[in-house]
């Protein structure tokens, strides 16, 4: 397990997915569920296909590992999205803005796969912390919900 700095941010491809309303598609996983890693760190991690990123609260998420020259040693990048936000901490230094950048995390090689968006939402927000039975109502939309044509 390696201590590392996490930066998150937008990419134009991730932006096109979310602006097009395709957040519950495989495209969102492809464009936001990865982690850019410096070649030296990538080799030190054991040339992983997948990495687990864990924050100080113990929350962790699995994302695809990408070896890139765009990162400095000791720093990784995950695009803005639901994968990154599992580990982004809510401490705002009294500004309202959470730590989307310069966040100390731990990173390690792990087995995949990366959870899809709807699976991730269910895992972390329905079954992850509380049982599904504790919710009286059906709070979420099913992923097959496609209202056009059904009215």
């Amino acid at each position: 397990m390696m201590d590392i700095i996490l930066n998150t941010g937008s990419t134009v491809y991730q932006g096109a997915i979310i602006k097009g309303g395709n957040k519950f598609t495989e495209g969102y996983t492809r464009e936001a569920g990865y982690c850019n890693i410096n070649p030296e760190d990538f080799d030190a991690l054991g040339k992983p296909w997948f990495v687990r990123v864990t924050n100080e609260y113990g929350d962790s998420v699995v994302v695809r590992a990408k070896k890139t020259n765009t990162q400095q040693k000791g720093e990784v990048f995950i695009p803005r999205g639901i994968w990154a936000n599992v580990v982004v901490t809510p401490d705002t230094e009294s500004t309202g803005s959470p730590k989307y950048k310069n966040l100390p995390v731990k990173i390690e090689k792990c087995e995949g796969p990366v959870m899809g968006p709807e699976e991730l939402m269910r895992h972390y927000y329905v079954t992850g912390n509380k049982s599904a039975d504790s919710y009286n109502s059906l709070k979420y939309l099913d992923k097959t919900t496609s209202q056009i044509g059904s009215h």
Partner: protein
Amino acid sequence: MISNVVKQDLVKEEQGVIKCTDVTCPVCGMSCDDCEIELTPTSVTTKNACLMGDAKFQELRSHHRLVYPVVNGERVSWEKALDTAADILVNAKRPFFFMGSETANEAMAVGIEMAEYLGGLVDGNATICHGPTVMAVQDAGQVGCTLGECRNRSDLAIYWGCNPADSHPRHMSRHSMYMRGFFTEQGYQARKMVVVDPRRSPTAAQADVHVQLKPGTDYEVLDALMTILNGFEPHPSVEEVTGVSPEQLHQVADMVKNCKFGVIWVGLGIASSTGKHHNASIAMRLTQMANKYSKFVILANRGHCNVAGFNQVLSWTAGFPFAVDYSRGYPRFQPGEYSCVDALKRGEVDALLCMCADLGGHLPKKAVEHLMDIPVISLEIAPGPQAFVSDVILPGVLDGMECEGTFYRMDNVPIYARSFTKPPFDFTESNEDTLKQLLKVVKEKKQKY
């Protein structure tokens, strides 16, 4: 009245095909107003829109558009959905009103009115975006200008903690780098470009100088630059602390001194990093100091459509730019206490109305966990994390396409966004109309208590 004049000139409908020019793009803070649309019953063709803008315009004919109201996962009538939403809000002790950015000022004004009427908290996308930069404007003051001035005058662009090649794809080609302006006829050949970013981003790859600082050391680098501009040498430890050599700092300082019109574009690399508003404050003070040598301005690359508009609307209604609490009947401003992430993290909010934003997708996990515990009402156009955490979904209307409105561009210039088509339902005309109908039901219920 103005929309009728505009419609005659710019919107043409022939044989079921709508063609419209000068469409305002409702995606990022640039509000590009030169888009062209050709809309058929089955397809959307765009001109001048970027990848993100095109994706947004394709929503007009997408297969996943939410077109009827949903309560607890079940389809209901519009009246039932409004009634349920009003019940949730009226019965809440500390309701939260989140005014997202992908809608017009007119709708935000109604949302803020509802927050004031019910004594709730109100916040907008600025809180998770350039909120710290807005705090820095209060702290240090901003030397600003319009995007047009940057286009026509600037010969030095410093992108600090931002990556417009990804976040604002037309930024450099329309306003800051590659286009020719009135006093910048040579275009990019007469401009210099500095990027300050720990990553070798696509923007940094185009720069004359890439200052690759260590993450979280923006304040130190800005401070060292101010020291040099004041005629002193920075402390020798600056390279060890920031990863930037004194030689490179001097190179940037010389570019600042010798330019005719410089612009610092600040991004979330400053606002979201350690130091937050202090980083943005010192960047603004550096800008003020640079005016000793040349004309220099600082502008924030606002990321979401009308995120600047929320700051403007709340400022002229409450006197504060974001994070306002109306629980005592008058507005109080306290980022870190009344701001969205903090209020949700502490678990004090017991109902939330979210208009045109994806809190489920963009807030940290600890905040989203609380969203799952409380009733959430959303104005939403597509399935996704926000629909996932919502109890009541009121179908949203696409501002700037299906209804007209006003957006504030990233330089705080209001831009009129015209409509060229209608929503695919008839129970509401706009998000403003939806909130007005909801407010009416809320007032009826509140008066019964």
